[in-house]
């Protein structure tokens, strides 16, 4: 288990519980009461932390090393039915973008999402969740297939950005993302997008055009990461906390500015504290949204999707 600096009080309490248990076992003393008190204290502490999270702390939580990633959600949601599909049919299989079919209850769903790794080796294998153009093209291929078979699409977004490398530029990173924005606008099937971790810029938006765009409670979504924003606007890496505040990148801010459609609850302390509960919250929301969206006429759904994105922006009209 890993602990962020502001999670330290919880870590200390967990250590105390361990000690109490050990002492109890050695001395054959009943410690149930003490352990229960400490556990209550943990809940209380977690509530206190959650109640005053800063935007930067939310960013840290979205990148928590123990946080579940895209495939963890898919496996849990599809209950053993997931069939992963590979390749863009042109260049290669991008390991930073995964996708495939699975059943959520009785409903077939096409899942697509950026994938991060949880060991050094896997992080490299997944390119830190930063797709190349072939990742976006693989995503589009799978979305078109889903459309053909009238299967709704769920995208799970978790990326520090599209990969800014040499080959990505050669193969048209910008074109690949732009094409997805255009094509996703008029997909005839329902599209639900969920930000489960980091929603960084065009790399996130490239699979982020949906009838419902939802954010998990401890995630962020913006045009740039706080670190890069700090380095560009303040010309120093030291203003990331300030940049995180200024960017209004939390789910609450995004909902307030009408740039997303809703927020999905996380377990107390974050998805990493109780992944099973996090999966259950997402599953419940998916059922709810899919049921509603599947009832709508495809043309109306597309019109509504387009109108929603066209309404985004803040400007003045002078007389």
């Amino acid at each position, binding site marked *: 288990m890993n602990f962020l600096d502001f999670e330290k009080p919880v870590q200390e309490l967990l250590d105390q519980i361990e000690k109490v248990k050990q002492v109890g076992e050695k001395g054959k003393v009943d410690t149930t009461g003490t352990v229960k008190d400490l556990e209550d204290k943990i809940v209380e502490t977690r509530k206190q932390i959650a109640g005053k999270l800063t935007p930067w702390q939310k960013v840290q939580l979205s990148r928590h090393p123990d946080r579940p990633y895209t495939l963890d959600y898919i496996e849990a949601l599809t209950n053993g039915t997931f069939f992963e599909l590979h390749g863009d049919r042109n260049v290669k299989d991008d390991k930073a973008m995964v996708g495939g079919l699975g059943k959520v209850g009785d409903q077939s769903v096409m899942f697509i999402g950026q994938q991060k790794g949880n060991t050094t080796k896997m992080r490299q294998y997944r390119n830190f969740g930063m797709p190349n153009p072939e990742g976006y093209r693989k995503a589009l291929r799978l979305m078109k297939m889903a459309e053909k078979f009238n299967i709704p699409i769920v995208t799970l977004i978790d990326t520090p950005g*599209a*990969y*800014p*490398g*040499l080959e*990505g*530029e*050669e*193969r*048209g*990173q*910008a*074109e690949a*993302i*732009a*094409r997805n*924005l*255009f094509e996703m*606008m*008029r997909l005839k099937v329902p599209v639900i997008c969920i930000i489960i971790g980091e929603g960084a*810029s*065009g790399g996130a*938006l*490239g699979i*982020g*055009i949906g009838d419902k765009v939802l954010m998990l409670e401890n995630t962020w*979504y*913006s*045009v*740039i990461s706080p670190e890069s*924003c700090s380095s*560009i*606007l*303040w010309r120093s890496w030291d203003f990331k906390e300030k*940049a995180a505040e*200024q*960017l*209004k*990148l939390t789910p609450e801010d*995004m909902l307030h*500015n009408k*740039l997303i459609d809703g927020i999905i609850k996380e377990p107390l302390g974050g998805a990493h504290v109780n992944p099973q509960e996090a999966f259950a919250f997402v599953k419940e929301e998916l059922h709810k949204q899919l049921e509603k969206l599947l009832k709508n006429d495809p043309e109306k759904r597309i019109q509504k*999707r*387009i109108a929603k*994105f*066209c309404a*985004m*922006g*803040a*400007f*003045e*009209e*002078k*007389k």
Partner: protein
Amino acid sequence: MADSWFQRIKEGITTSTREKKETPEGLWYKCPSCKKIIPSEEHVANAFVCPSCDYHERIGSIEYFYLLFDDNKFLELSTEIMPTDPLHFVDTKNYKERLKATQGSTGLNDAIRTAVGPMNGKGVVIACMDFKFIGGSMGSVVGEKIARAIDYCIENKLPFVLISKSGGARMMEAAFSLMQMAKTSAKLTLLADAKLPFISLLTDPTTGGVTASYAMLGDFNIAEPGALIGFAGPRVVKETIKKDLPKGFQTSEFLLEHGFLDAIVNRKEMKNKLSHLFSMLMQGKQEEVS
């Protein structure tokens, strides 16, 4: 607005401050590429392209409208749309003040102007970004003006030209800026449904969220020679790969070679090439305007 370009030429404002110091008369243009000095008049008559080395000077909407519309005749659209500061963004300066200062120094409302007018006698809507307005960054106003220009095309059955010149999304409007990529792409699907042609003209520089949305979505993607065009900026790519970048990386010529442009067109021929393309596509469906 339509006359101000002539005013600017008279006052010699087309030469940048950097060159002004070196050219005593102010009515001279010094090419930053080959360093040749020519009369400003000649430079303007040559579409702001150096006659010696073909260097395409960075120009703005005033100059593009002058070059592309017949006799500089056009009606500017959506002039009432003004930027705000929705996030109360403060970095080293506050955004509201930055806007006011930039509006004052450039005479522009924001980083794009949109207009309708005749191009070789046929009506066309042109949207043109202005790099000197906060690096041509795309915020809510840029998105909204493009959206309304597309609506205007659909209502009046006109073709659309969008001239990009931008460092990408405007950070001070954060996610509002990001969503302009989605918004403009959404509108372009409607333009496509109306079967009206869209030429994306990419000029130096076009990077970031602008490239990753409308600039790459033209029925025709056309660039001026030697323009920097990319998703990530060259500095970022260099830091990522920790190697020097190959020569000509992310230039118009590089993009053409890799299959992302239909053509590279010299600015001197731009107007005729664009109207030729439209006339072939619209096959007599274009109204004569004068």
